[in-house]
């Protein structure tokens, strides 16, 4: 009996502590760049950039970057986006400067102060842009850490007040809520990003981060990879409790697979489709993704989004 009392006490103390610390985190002031000193920023490749004043014309070469720019409040500086950028709604009106391939002529026409590129995909483009004398700023976006870091960096560059602190606070609150509600074991998930051929993600993907934060285990977190074509046999062996279908299609396409009828997820009817748009970009909506995923997996004990996001 005393043991149980101690446990309750510990739980209450932890909750209070977490609540206070999360609030405290939100109070950290944002550095405002007062005066007209030049800002020195380093991008993810280690290149140093100097910004004398906040850039007036920028280009984004990736939907995730577009979302981040809009998130920090610099939508009005965005002069060029890709055809794949579709969030928020306003960006659809902005001039398109390419898709997988960049239209350099348009970019030159716009004469941007800086072009933001995502690391890994755009190494070649960076070289080409620099040869035209255009600043190419690389951002790494593959985890909460890097995404939040990028948000803060852009906030600094654009001299804005909005930074990642609200997001990290929300994330913190979600985690707290999860801890409060969780007394049962963590659920295993097979997160399918494509159907034909079947693909999933390993531990180098931001989706892995989302799953971790959402109190789920990615059955393929042992694989050192981002997105990869997966062996269905292995999926069967791992026997996940839940299957997330993060692409357009019907769940029956998965359940009908030969051999899948024996899987727990199929037997219990736990193949879940999600609004995959939230899950395809390592950007500000990742936090939303955590909550969305958690609520889908633990639909018996959902967390009310208003509880988190209205603060």
């Amino acid at each position, binding site marked *: 009996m005393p043991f149980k009392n101690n446990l309750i006490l510990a739980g209450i103390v932890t909750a209070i502590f977490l609540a206070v610390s999360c609030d405290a985190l939100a109070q950290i002031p944002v550095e405002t760049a007062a005066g007209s000193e030049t800002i020195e920023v380093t991008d993810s490749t280690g290149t140093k950039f100097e910004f004398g004043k906040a850039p007036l014309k920028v280009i984004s070469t990736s939907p995730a970057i577009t979302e981040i720019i809009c998130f920090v409040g610099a939508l009005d500086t965005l002069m060029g986006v890709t055809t794949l950028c579709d969030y928020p709604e306003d960006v659809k009106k902005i001039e398109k400067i390419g898709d997988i391939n960049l239209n350099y002529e348009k970019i030159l026409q716009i004469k941007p102060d800086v072009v933001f590129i995502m690391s890994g995909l755009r190494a070649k483009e960076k070289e080409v842009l620099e040869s035209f004398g255009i600043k190419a700023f690389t951002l790494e976006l593959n985890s909460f850490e890097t995404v939040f870091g990028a948000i803060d960096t852009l906030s600094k560059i654009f001299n804005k007040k909005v930074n990642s602190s609200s997001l990290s606070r929300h994330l913190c609150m979600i985690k707290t809520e999860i801890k409060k509600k969780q007394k049962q074991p963590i659920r295993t998930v097979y997160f399918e990003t494509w159907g*034909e051929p079947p693909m999933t993600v390993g531990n180098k993907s931001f989706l892995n981060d989302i799953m971790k934060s959402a109190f789920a285990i990615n059955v*393929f977190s042992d*694989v050192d990879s981002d997105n990869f*074509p997966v062996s*269905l*046999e292995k999926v*069967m062996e791992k026997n996940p409790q839940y299957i997330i279908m993060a692409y357009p299609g019907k769940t029956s396409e998965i359940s009908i697979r*030969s*051999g899948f009828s*024996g899987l727990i997820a199929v037997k219990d009817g736990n193949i879940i489709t999600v609004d995959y748009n939230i899950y395809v970009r390592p950007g500000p909506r990742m936090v939303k993704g955590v909550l969305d995923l958690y609520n889908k997996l633990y639909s018996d004990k959902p967390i009310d989004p208003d509880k988190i996001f209205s603060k």
Partner: protein
Amino acid sequence: MNFKNDGPARVNEATLFALLGLLCFAGVLMSFLLGQVKIPLSEVFNFFFSSKNMMAPFSLYNDILRIRLSRIAVAFITGGGLSLAGVIYQSALNNFLADPFMLGVSAGAALFSAIAISLGLTSSVMITAFAFSGAILSVVFVILISGFKKFSSYNLILSGIALNSFFSSFLTVVMYLSKDMQNIFFWLMGSLTVRHPEQIAYTYIIVAAAGAFVLRYSHMLDILKLNEKTVFSLGVDSAAWKIRFILVASVVSAVIVSQTGIIGFVGLIVPHAARIIIGDRHSVLVPFAFITGGTMLIYCDLISRIIINSMDISIGVITSIVGAPFFILLLYGSKKRGA
């Protein structure tokens, strides 16, 4: 290859087939045993021979074995069929660089399946049907174009290349404009996983029928390789026979491409290798190439399934990695022999 003085030591044809059969059997066995999940031999044995196990549902091993059985069956008929088509093309067109996709089969199948996918058709039966029609239409088109001048292998090949480029550029446009580019792209890469295993049966039937035809008239393929005037002097209508064989081979390629996408190198390499090992007599070359191709693809499939943990690499990648160096070796070897 029971003839003297040419090539490696004189080996009985029967022995060669026996060795090949052994290799194939070993490949099949390994394909059942190995994969991302290791399955003990006893389970495999039970799967085949213990009737009650076959019926038992929800057994992980059985399920996986069922998947592997389907993969092996597809791999064998795909490799075998492509090699069969390859032998026929190479002999009928008298060109060692001919492959089953040459006469527009791949381009037609690719373009039409891309159209099907971008029209929103997701049913694999529909996509297959589109691909097949595209392939056959292309071949017929190629034969008609090249027939305007005097029918010759040279004209056929050129027309095929022209059509391939033409359709490929169309394909690029379709892929670019459609939002299903990823779907199309993956379809093109080739895959041995078929959604409806029953479709494999159709493939087997068609390839078997084609094989029967070719075997029945294998001596005609031999004759087509002789001097042009000799062929004429034998009273053989070489143009008519070439077209017959090409159509049969094209049906085989079309059926396979429409199901599994474009898997390269098999149809080009295996006929060569088979020729080197067993000689030019088609009555043995054709079956030997068929089994060799099927075996090769079984092994390639096995590699694609086990090479990286948890991953299932696209089969086209494996055949390229295995096939490309082999191809270079072949070219080098044939240059030395002065072919």
